[in-house]
């Protein structure tokens, strides 16, 4: 059964389940210079063009040390000319958390798009996973930060 599961998982992961690569994966809105008038819809390629920062860490959902790469919180805020004090992040299942701007600026979090160099599928908590550098800072190891570590992010709003 286990082997079958594995085979199936590999099979499905290889499928282009997330649709067309040109489809927007992330909507950005709220108090930023670039989104004052209308929200920004970014494809994976456009989003990854903003910045590439790598965080190597274990997480509560990844027992092994894993290499995540994506856009750092700082770089994203600079790119957008963001204002505001909090960022609402919304997942595909409409789970929503508020992340303080201070986390974006100081904690070293990234909006990861790739795990070990490969884009993350929805089944693997993609397309965007907010990753805190847990290994670098043990103080992050608590429920509050776990709650902010949102995955399957489809939209962020600055307010």
């Amino acid at each position, binding site marked *: 059964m286990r082997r079958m*599961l594995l085979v199936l998982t590999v099979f*499905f992961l290889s499928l282009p389940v997330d649709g067309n690569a040109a489809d927007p994966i992330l909507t950005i809105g709220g108090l930023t210079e670039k989104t004052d008038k209308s929200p920004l819809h970014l494809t994976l390629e456009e989003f990854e063009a903003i910045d590439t920062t790598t965080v190597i860490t274990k997480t*509560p959902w990844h027992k092994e040390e894993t290499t995540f790469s994506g856009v750092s919180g700082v770089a994203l805020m600079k790119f957008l000319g963001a204002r505001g004090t909090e960022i609402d992040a919304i997942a595909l*299942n409409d789970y929503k958390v508020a992340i303080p701007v201070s986390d974006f600026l100081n904690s070293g979090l990234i909006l990861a798009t790739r795990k070990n160099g490969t884009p993350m599928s*929805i*089944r*693997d908590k993609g397309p965007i996973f907010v990753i805190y550098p847990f290994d670098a800072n043990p103080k992050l*190891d*608590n429920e509050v930060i776990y709650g902010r570590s949102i995955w399957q992010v489809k939209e962020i709003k600055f307010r």
Partner: protein
Amino acid sequence: MTVILILITVGASVFSGYWYVQLRHDTETLRSAPKDDPTWGILQLNAEALKFADALHAVTIDNTAKTRKRLSLRLDIFYSRFDIISEVFVRYEQWLSATRTVDIYPMVAVSQHKLTRDFLGIRDRFIDMDRDVQIFLSTTDAEGLKGIRHQLDQVISSSSELASRVNQATNQKEFNIRENVLDHLYEFQWTLLLIILGFIFFSAASLVLYMNAWRAEQRSRQAAIELKTASEAKSNFLSSMSHELRTPLNAILGFAQLLEYDPKEPLSDRQTSSVESILRGGHHLLELINQVLELSKIEAGKISLNFGWVPARSVIDESLHLIESQALENEIEILDHTTGNLPVLWTDSTRLTQVLINLLSNAIKYNVRGGKVTLTCQEIPPYMFRIKVIDTGQGIPAKKQEDLFKPFERLGREAGNIEGTGIGLTITRQIIDLLNGQVGFESELGKGSTFWVDIPMNSQTNEDDDTPTFPGQP
């Protein structure tokens, strides 16, 4: 009291140590506990199942690319939820086996195992359904949708049932851990209270003991002051009484002597005998009074000493000279064996002579008729010079020896015909103490006694040296 205190302290320490370890373990257990709640994951799974059901319903009504795309998205999200719950359950299992939690909460462990097993069953069912949905999405053949609906219903019903069980298990776990920690905290509190009470008790007991000791010291100090006052009063009384007694006694003795030797009116033989008795009694009384006066002076600290370097030879010679007549009178032969080069002594020559005469006088008085008194001496290095007076008397019984230096002790001679006051040796010892010396004796019944005095000397026996040194002396 002390034993109880120690027992309480040790007991409290052991208890607190034990509870410390327990609490330490509780803390570790809590700290290492998985921080995400499986209940949330299961609820999310159920919510996602309903959204998937909604998307499936839409496809059933209208099988288009748009509805199929939505179905595919919901399926992926649905799929991802299973992974997350698996991870949470795995962490719970690991935590349960890594900590002693399994021993403390066996029910938690058992129900967790069951939950994990049942969850994996649901996941297997989902995987089957997932495969069928994938087939539908690639073939777009609506025939399979009925079967998928049936599989989904099974997943939803068992997952709803699992959700309430996970919730119960989580509640149970929270409850058990909290109760356990609270129990230990309460016990720790009691132990702490015990330690505090023990400490207070200990402090109070120490204070009481200290106060008692302080009071006892105050009392003994008071007693010492009273004793000194009483002793001074006694000495003052004796001193003034002796003076008062001496004045009339001098009149008695003076006029008795005038009677005895008045050439104009010579006394008859009977009268002479009576006057001699008066004189003898009077002299004895005078000696007694003088010695009492002397003793009271010494005890009151009123005698003055003139220390100086005194040749031992001169003190011995003077003492022998003064005792000569008494020896002749008692028919005692005095043998002086103190020959050679004698040292100089740091002492008061008058007082030392007084002591020697007292010892010689005793040796003569308590000797046998025709007996001998021998005087010897020796140096006791480094700083003492010993003079020994050896008699051939009856000796002193062992059981009376310890009373010898007490005032008015005459060792059963009170009724005898030998004159004595009973305070000569008391005075001797007092004086020797003041002269920084020592006095002692050895005695054997029937053979005689040896009395000795030790007096500080200049260790250099050179009498020509004008500035002899003697440590510790002014």
